[in-house]
């Protein structure tokens, strides 16, 4: 028996005049998932969220919730709520009235509303703010009230539109942890929109990377980071070195690639199906590259020599930008874990870099 998804997006398209905001997007989202739509601004993620909420209508395709199309239902009748970027708390209502709003709309009895509002306030740990007006709250508190308001009548789905973008870095990290725990506790499906790849990796069960109105890759965070399916994903998620070349030969999952200007390197345990002669790029994460004055490579490793072109001291790590003999710039990380030592090299020093054959991942044109 086929397990039906909670939410199914089927071939949804949306055009604004000549601009294609969404191009036949399909997605299946399971119940209880923390699902993230990730992409640069203008990639269509917010458009998709507005279609789900019902503020906009698709030009084609269908959206199914629990196997039933919700396309024709207006936003007020869809069993899902949205957290807006600026929280959209009603300024003329108290915190309690704000949280009670969806219950009031649903026609709950006054007594019920009161009880559930105080319960909701307990859940977000702001029980003494009931009589305050939103203006008197801090950014983090507004955020929590907005979440309490959206969850108070237990929607099937919660849509979050870059909810943490207005907070400062420290508070954002704290709210990320709160969001993860909250979602785990209540088990409601979250669909989260962000352009911040770090936030997406930290929060999500699964991520859909979007670009120019299309979904490029849907996967769990580790696979998205380790095995991007395209140059775009490799470049967008985290830091990544892209080494261009040609596939020389393939035997099973062992591939030899002729890198432009560097020569052949061996890639083992490749998950990419490639044909000899085709163009490809080897994606190498900076933290997977070994850097030393003398790397003394093992048999499985590829190694090249170069010199330190630039360096960025970041405290916990130092980023070295190494110029290889052919002029290619390679980024490598070195943790500053040795006591007392921070800078192992200076700009201009000769260094060697090496990576093991399973460190890189091949993406095709």
């Amino acid at each position, binding site marked *: 028996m086929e397990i039906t998804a909670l939410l199914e997006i089927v071939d949804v398209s949306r055009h604004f005049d000549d601009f294609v905001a969404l191009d036949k997007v399909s997605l299946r989202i399971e119940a209880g998932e923390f699902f993230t739509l990730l992409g640069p601004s203008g990639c269509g993620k917010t458009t998709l969220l507005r279609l789900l909420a019902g503020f906009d209508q698709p030009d084609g395709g269908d959206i199914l919730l629990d196997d039933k199309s919700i396309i024709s239902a207006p936003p007020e009748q869809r069993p899902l709520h949205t957290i807006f970027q600026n929280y959209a708390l009603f300024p003329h209502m108290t915190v309690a009235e704000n949280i009670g709003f*969806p219950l009031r709309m649903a026609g709950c009895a006054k007594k019920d509303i009161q009880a559930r509002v105080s319960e909701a306030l307990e859940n977000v740990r702001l029980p003494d703010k009931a009589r305050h007006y939103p203006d008197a709250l801090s950014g983090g508190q507004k955020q929590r009230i907005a979440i309490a308001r959206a969850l108070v009548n237990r929607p099937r789905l919660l849509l979050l539109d870059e909810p943490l973008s207005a907070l400062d870095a420290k508070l954002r990290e704290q709210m990320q942890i709160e969001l993860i725990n909250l979602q785990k506790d209540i088990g409601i499906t979250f669909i989260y929109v962000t352009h911040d790849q770090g936030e997406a990796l930290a929060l999500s069960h699964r991520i859909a990377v979007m670009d120019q109105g299309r979904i490029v890759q849907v996967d769990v965070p580790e696979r998205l980071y380790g095995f991007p399916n395209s140059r775009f994903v490799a470049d967008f998620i985290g830091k990544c070195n892209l080494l261009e070349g040609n596939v020389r030969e393939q035997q099973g999952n062992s591939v030899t690639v002729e890198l432009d200007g560097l020569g052949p390197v061996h890639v083992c345990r490749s998950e990419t199906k490639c044909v000899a002669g085709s163009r490809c790029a080897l994606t190498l994460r900076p933290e997977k590259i070994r850097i030393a004055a003398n790397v003394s490579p093992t048999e499985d490793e590829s190694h090249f020599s170069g010199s330190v072109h630039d360096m960025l001291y970041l405290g916990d790590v130092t980023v070295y930008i190494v110029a290889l003999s052919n002029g290619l710039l390679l980024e490598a990380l070195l943790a500053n874990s040795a006591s007392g030592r921070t800078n192992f090299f200076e700009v201009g020093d000769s260094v060697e870099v090496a990576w093991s054959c399973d460190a890189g991942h091949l993406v095709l044109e």
Partner: protein
Amino acid sequence: MQGKAWYKYLLSLPPMAYLLIFFAAPTFIMLFASFRYAGEYGGLAPWYLHEGGRLTLDLTLENWQRLLETDIYLRLFLRSIGYAVATTLLCMVMGYPLALMIARSGRKHRDLLLLLVILPFWSNFLVRIYAWMIIFSPAGALTRMINGALELLGMGSVTLMYSPTAMLVCLVYVHLPFMVLPLYANLEKHDLDLLDAAQDLGAGKWRRFWLITWPLSLPGITAGSILVFIPVLGMFAIPDLLGGTNGIMIGNVIKQQFMESRDWPFGSVLSMVLTVTAVAVVLLGSRLGARREGR
């Protein structure tokens, strides 16, 4: 810090001085005049007398007593307030949808629509009232059309000119922009995400209006109402030209006291009552506005 505060006072000095000279001082002169005797040929009699080389004050309460002797003036005030309330309500009912429509229309159209609201100000007030007199005149097309229709229905004819209807139409026509502009200024600033949020949380069209837009626009309604109510309360030009004998408002009587009866002290009494009424309405309005805003 202190230097800064000093500068602030310096900046507000010109408007303060202006208000003092042209508002506060005349108000007190008027208040004082209401206790004096009228001069023999108009104006005011001296407020002191020479008696055997001594100066004595020559003031009286009889102007104020005259106000309370009959209920004529009370009824005039009530009628004026009635016209002011009716005009304000009509302006609100007609102005709100218009202001909302302009505030929600695209940026390009918005400026044009606002221009159209302000357009009547480009021609003289009296000219516009005379235009209405032509429209309302018994020989005018409008009156003839209405009477023609009434005749077909077998009913008697009506006169529009010099009727309360004509006055009200004109009062609303003149004051509508004063309601629309502050309302627009308020509505245009509303965060539309709030309406999306309300809809998302289950509110239909009417509840979104009555629970979000309306309460948030109360300061605009208050401002517009004050801007309409106060000038209508003291209006004399429109009742003069269009009101006929039954359309007299308190403003006409005040004008009469000063210009025709030449009884400045009694005119001052009526003016003081009018001023106090207006100030009371403003205070009440801003109190209500502040409370409904929830602070």
